[in-house]
């Protein structure tokens, strides 16, 4: 159809390219969001949890969703270890285990405050309210995969892959602002 009036659409004030990782924590409305400093992360896989535990010299949580000394059991044969920066684990060469360094793969945030669960619920389809402290799981925040760890009634830890982190931070801040 010719000469339809061009709609008066203003250019976007901000685009996804303008999103960056925060340099400052965010605090408002009883919520505090902060970047977690760099740390060691290992993806651990094995059929035999005992063999894996012996290989890396650490106890592992038994139940899917449980956490133990920084290690989360994500699936029947999968754990994620969140360890102090610089920590390394034996790779278990030749054994039926998989130990992979993914320290740089993810970025972590902490979300604390009385409204933390509600903030996560803005984009996470799980029943966050009923998640017990100490439990953790891999899930989604809107379209982005996250590992969610409830560390206390009012404190959560969220990890996502590095390139999604600016978006996730901005989405959490937008949610915190209503």
């Amino acid at each position: 159809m010719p000469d339809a009036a061009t709609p008066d659409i203003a250019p976007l004030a901000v685009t996804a390219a303008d999103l960056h990782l925060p340099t400052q924590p965010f605090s408002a409305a009883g919520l505090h969001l902060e970047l977690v400093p760099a740390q060691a992360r290992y993806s651990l896989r094995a059929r035999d949890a005992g063999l894996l535990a012996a290989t890396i010299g650490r106890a592992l949580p038994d139940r899917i969703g449980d956490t133990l000394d920084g290690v989360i059991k994500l699936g029947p044969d999968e754990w994620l270890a969140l360890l102090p920066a610089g920590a390394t684990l034996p790779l278990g060469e030749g054994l039926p285990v998989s130990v992979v360094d993914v320290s740089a793969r993810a970025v972590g945030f902490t979300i604390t405050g009385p409204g933390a669960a509600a903030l996560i619920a803005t984009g996470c389809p799980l029943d966050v309210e009923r998640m017990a402290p100490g439990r953790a799981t891999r899930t989604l925040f809107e379209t982005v995969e996250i590992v969610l760890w409830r560390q206390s009634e009012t404190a959560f830890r969220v990890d996502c892959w590095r390139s999604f982190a600016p978006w996730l931070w901005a989405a959490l801040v937008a949610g915190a602002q209503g």
Partner: protein
Amino acid sequence: MSGYRLPTGGRVDRAKSVSFSFDGQSYTGLAGDNLASALVANGVTLFGRSFKYHRPRGILGMGSEEPNALVTVDRGPGRTTPNLRAPSVPLHSGLVASSQNRFPSLKFDLGAVNDKLGAFFPAGFYNKTFMWPRSAWEKLYEPAIRQMAGLGDSPTSRDPDHYASTYAHCEVLVVGAGPAGIEAALAAAQSGDRVILVDEQEEIGGGALADPAQWAWLTDARAQLLALSNVQLLERTTAIAHLHQNFVVAVQRLTDHVAPAQAQGAREKLWRIRAARVVLAQGAIERPLVFDGNDVPGVMLASAGRSLALRFGVAPGHAVAVMATHDSGWHDALALAKAGVHIVAIIDVRDDVSSDLLDAAGAAGIAVHLNHAVIGVGGRHAVKSVTIAAAGSSAARTLSCDCLLMAGGWTPTVHLWSHAKGSLRWDADWAAYLPDSIDDNVIAVGGGAGAWNYGSGVAVSNLPSPKPVHQQKAFVDFQNDVKARDIRLAVQEGFRSIEHIKRYTTNGMATDQGKTSNINGLQIASEVLSKPVTAVGLTTFRPPYTPQTFGALMGHHKDALFQPLRRTVIDDWAVANGAVFENVAQWRRARYFPQGSETMDQAVARECLAVRERVGMFDASTLGKIEVVGPDAAEFLNRMYTNPWKSLEPGRCRYGLLLREDGFIVDDGVSARLAPDRFHLTTTTGGAARVLGMMEDYLQTEWSDLDVWLTSTTEQYAVIAVQGPLARAVIAPLVAGIDLSHEAFPHMAVREGTICGVPTRLFRVSFTGELGFEVNVAAEHGLAVWQAIHEAGQAHGIVPYGTETMHVLRAEKGYIIVGQDTDGTLTPDDAGLGWAVGKKKPDFVGKRSLARPDIVGAGRKQLVGLLTKDPQVVLEEGAQIVADPAQPVPMTMLGHVTSSYHSATLGRSIALAMLVDGRAKLGETIYVPMPGGTIAAEVTGMVFLDPKGSRLDA
């Protein structure tokens, strides 16, 4: 004129007047009014023009079922909302509303000529009339029809509001806060379970809002609900969809009920609710009656009249007649009379009505006409009189009145029940479908379940009239202007199923989804077809229950948050160095780095020559990476990829080709064996998630016995490709622990050591045909290492290059890009990659398909090179190829150009193409017809530069 506000009664606050405007005229209403009640109180009867015939229309209902009174509300720039139902627009000070679908004004509408010509607009009119000439449809008919037949105008400027959204979980979700819903919520809350109660209205109460006898209970019940910490009460919230496993979507309106200046925060909030149990208490909607003139402004549902009078303290008219086929109309008439509204008469088609009702009418002094029906309505912009006649008689009498209420019985609201795939059963007493059975944990209660007794009635398709139906302006679907005669016509023309009748007549297809018209349409079709209603079928309700804003559905997913844009750790450096970007999957990648006023072609030519002559560096971080670990890692890869992997020695790399079961290429990449039980795979940028998912699928479902695990390491590593004859010289000073010499570290090898002091997996690989390295370092070090290489490379004339240059360099070498040079129908042989298929392997994914007759037969498209006869002409990617440009259209197409560039190195254009039997056509001339003329090209091999690959071994 303001004589319609009753002196007492209603839930409005008579101490608070509210000024607003409609079509530019100022009015005053009361706090608690909605736009419809406030306008009726001011004597306004005319709210809009109908969709097709431009007939004057008033309000029909006082709820979300309202089909006629669609208005546009203007809340400032970018904040106009069309097609709002006036009874659902809460009144606030300064509200600016206007009517729609009229020109030049609501009272004088030129389009109303359609009404005079109504006989020429039967069902299927558009289908039958605007067929020829075909070209006129787009240019003439459709624009003209859209202008005439329409709803409000879409806003054309950016919506400045923002929209929130959340998930919520509860044990019991109650939809609808009428008495049944409130009771259900209170009962469910006793257990301590989490209860969410949603209601679409300004205040909860449903039908009780129009029944003062229940107000004390309602006040108490609301206070109880608010006091319960386990109950979340969501007012102004419409449950719009009931999806699988009790996932219910609701939209809460947060600010539209206050003046724009008072609005704070998000305009609306999307609730995505997962409930263990859903209680549907949606109530029922009253049915209009079908008779000549039933759409004249002032003819409305009896329930609307009741709501106006008892909830809002507004008389629907000074002299009100009631046409009933159901007892509820009598109850409403009596309630209105008690509220001080003058009831002229109750007309009922039945000749047998309960003595209680007759006595009550008599006591109220209301004239009663049994076995009568309204056969005509006087007035155009407002009711002036109604004509009634006894059934089967043409002896008519006229009653003077300014409002006619219709009580045609009730249709339980089963929309959400139907969304959730609940079945329905026809109930003859209700003359409506009621909820029957459902798989999910859902129950229906109250009027919506048929569990409500408001007396009895009879179902009548058309009210009896001496006038033939085809001469009556008797509307069934008010919003889409469908008359009883249209449905009869559809049946006469051979339509039998209600699904077809619906689509032919458009009955029930307007934005109200036939809330007031479906059952009447069904009754008429049933009668004309002489079949029971249940044999005519039932149309399907689909979400949303009421129209919604796109904003609510989008939530925060707009502007910067529309979707994640993935950037590498080197992206900021690229920005600072003037890169032009392109998006690849969700990533953005530097496409080229123009210097000064360079065009893309100039920049790419410079970058290409630098790589061929000296050295270039490229951010390859977006490549998909998978760490494959476990004793069975080699066995697993051997089964996935076409070529042999078990023999690959640690420290060496191999090109891997991945097929689907159908034998077609799905991905490729170079992968390295780091240790006997550890591989570092790479995939295409766009294929990373797909390949990981596919491999997990095989591992978990086909070969769960293998001891091997997959871990995505795409984002663990930043990858810097350093390519060109001087590549070794550039990185040598930065690398420690690795012998970079050609002998110690040959092409297609991998070494671990350090670069700039940080650990690296250093690959000697090339996607350019030059000596090349790919430096993998932990992402956090990526930028520093990039900068160090860039600095070290200055002495060697290093240039950063982007994806466009990468594309040219690889095309010069005939390296394919999966997804650009392949289209999901190419086998390895088609792509010239037959060498990458292990002939001795017993099996791999896709192997069996490679033996199919159509895969091995002649006539398949194969990848070849093309060199245009004129070396300066660059073919267009996607252009079709023919053998004979003189052939009449449609020509036989032999394939298409997949990649095409100007090669600065070769001083001419090059192209890759998919061509039928391409390798048998080497040396032949093919043609590419383009709008500017036909281009001739010679079919060649795919490798344009250094076919022996000697540059790789520098």
